[in-house]
């Protein structure tokens, strides 16, 4: 008689194993990977039901939905990895409406041959980020593509949330006379990623600022419920975000270079690489626009939160049918801060 226990299944080898085509094949190997990795890491009542969807109740009010695909290279970087990044990124997109993020869905595209140890590390980082943010991953999907058809792992996350009553935050609500605020230093995420790129490698202690901002947003709304606009300046950086908001709202903006917080190391790296920190990506910062009379109160609320301690008022919204974003330079001139042209650095998030 065999000594093997009936129903024994060899555990997934998370130490030396690799993703293979069976992990996306819909069979036993896929079920086992989902069970031993995803369900275990994200553990919650919805995933335990093992359905292809998650059913949940929502309260009254306007719902918000946002989705974000993540293709960052490298997958692991100072201050984070694709796992926590894909949780933070979608939570932030939901939170920029003023909503309380409630649930996440995650879709994985894995490349054949990808080390299971790395996948485990990424999924556990995702799970930790979701736990810390109190926003569970309640449904998901996994696909595997042949070697050479992907680049390790791509993750798409979708989030839903509910906007509290009385909050109306939208990119088209900036009005002349409003003030523009940022929650902290610009360009940290982009420079952290750049420092690792194979043909650029340089030493820096800069870490990605990747963070979930919904708690900061809640504190800001509590202080100033009438915030007009919120947006996280990710790809294209502050410059691109301000241009988007100016365009949506049909007005112009003037910012002061000397008011914009930039870490000295980020400034140095940008000088060295010929980049402008205003165009470098952030993953844990936001831009806020509010009425002038609310600006000081909003600034105080931001600075009272750990993720907004370096917040600053950086400029004003002005009437301008051409929707230019202008900047008074520290040097004494005034210039346009234009949309990003081309691509500053591919696959930043």
């Amino acid at each position, binding site marked *: 008689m065999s000594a093997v226990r009936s129903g024994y299944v060899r555990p997934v080898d998370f130490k030396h194993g690799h993703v293979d085509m069976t992990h996306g094949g819909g069979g036993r190997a896929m079920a086992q990977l989902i069970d031993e990795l995803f369900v275990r890491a994200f553990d919650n009542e919805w995933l335990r039901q093992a359905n292809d969807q998650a059913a949940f109740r929502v309260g009254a009010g306007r719902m918000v939905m946002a989705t974000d695909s993540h293709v960052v290279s490298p997958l692991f970087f100072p201050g984070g990895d694709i796992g926590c990044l894909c949780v933070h990124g979608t939570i932030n997109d939901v939170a920029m409406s003023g909503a309380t993020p409630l649930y996440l869905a995650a879709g994985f595209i894995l490349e054949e041959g990808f080390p299971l140890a790395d996948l485990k590390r990424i999924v556990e980082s995702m799970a930790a980020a979701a736990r810390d943010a109190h926003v569970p991953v309640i449904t998901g999907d996994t696909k595997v593509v042949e070697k050479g058809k992907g680049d390790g792992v791509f993750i798409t996350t979708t989030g839903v949330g509910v906007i509290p009553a009385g909050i109306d935050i939208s*990119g088209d609500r900036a009005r002349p006379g409003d003030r523009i605020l940022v929650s902290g230093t610009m360009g940290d995420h982009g420079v952290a990623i750049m420092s690792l790129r194979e*043909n*650029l490698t340089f030493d820096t202690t800069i870490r990605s600022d990747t963070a979930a901002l919904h708690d900061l947003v809640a504190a800001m709304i509590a202080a100033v419920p009438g915030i007009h606009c919120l*947006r996280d300046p*990710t*790809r*294209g950086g502050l410059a*691109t975000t301000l*241009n*988007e908001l100016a*365009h*949506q709202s049909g007005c112009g903006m003037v910012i002061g270079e000397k008011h914009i917080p930039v870490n*000295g190391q980020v*400034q*140095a790296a940008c*000088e060295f690489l010929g980049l402008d920190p205003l165009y470098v990506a952030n993953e844990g910062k936001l831009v806020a626009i509010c009425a002038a009379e609310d600006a000081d109160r909003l600034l105080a609320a931001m600075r009272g939160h750990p993720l907004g301690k370096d917040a600053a008022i950086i400029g004003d919204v002005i009437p301008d*049918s*051409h*929707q*230019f974003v*202008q900047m008074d*330079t*520290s*040097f*004494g*001139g*005034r*210039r*346009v801060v*234009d*949309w990003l*042209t*081309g691509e500053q650095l591919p696959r930043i998030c």
Partner: protein
Amino acid sequence: MKYIDEFRDGELARRLASAIAREARPERSYNLMEFCGGHTHAISRYGLKDLLPANVNMIHGPGCPVCVLPVGRIDNAIALAARPGLILCTYADTMRVPASKGTSLLKAKARGADIRMIYSSADAIRIAQENPDRDVVFFAIGFETTTPPTAVAITQAMALGLANFSVFCNHVLTPAAISNILESKDVRALGTVPLDGFIGPAHVSTVIGSQPYEYFAEEYQRPVVIAGFEPLDVMQAILMLVRQLNDGRAEVENEFTRAVTRDGNAKAKALVAEVFELRRSFEWRGLGEVPYSALRIKEKYGDFDAEARYGITYRSVPDNKACECGAILRGVKKPTDCKVFGTVCTPENPIGSCMVSSEGACAAHYAYGRFKDVAMVAGTPAPATAPFA
């Protein structure tokens, strides 16, 4: 930031501006050409024109390496990249320069050509070492600043016996371009381009030194002030040029003494002389054929010359008819004189090369200064991309 903020000090800039305003004589004008794209960029980015009196005019010169590359040379590079198995290495700005029939290296890459953006010629060597069974060509462009690194790559390739590596050499020379402008009929015969003096190149001069400009100053009686690329460097150089013109002097002065000597970098010059020799003639976008204005690889290093290896033949291709890049590069026209500036021709869809590189006169004005002439660009909002960000 140390060593940067000092050269961007607004208070000092205002003091220099008031000195320029005080010393510039109201009865005359001062028409100064900044040769380099680096200066053009600094002038636009820091809004230096706002600080200058109305009779001090800055004229953009042809010193943007991407801008002066003619269509035919980009066509050659695209044809190279289309060869099966070949890897073409290039500096990033070159990717977007418009070539014949609406193509560019960026579009060729999207269609499947293996084109790699690199930051240094050393990256091209590394790529050749990592891909021993594939041909790797470095598309070398630029003035005297980027020439020595290309020479290093060629000598390294020879030392390593890197048989799969070669260079498509398009290096051009600054002094030849300045002569060409000063000899042009616009400046000499017609006088349509008033040119009173030059702001001389920064980085180029670190290599070639200030000595090569002495000939122009003497022969054409035009003062030259070599200046760094920081905004205060440019302001200081303008003041020095105003003083020379007021005194009736035409000398070579060096504002960029922290990096430039009279003789330049002897080691770099020797290396360039070892690897390269003068071409009899080379076509520049805007200037046309300019004699002895570019370099080719010497016979001794012929194994690494892509032109010989792949039998590249050059065919001159005219610019788009609507494009005024040629006149802009010669200083005859300003970006806003071009009908397609800011309308059909934008950084996203460049028609001419001046709209491509951040050092190009059109791109610099579009990116930093166009709010001053809004009539030109009204009604061209960029697309809203936020929902997919």
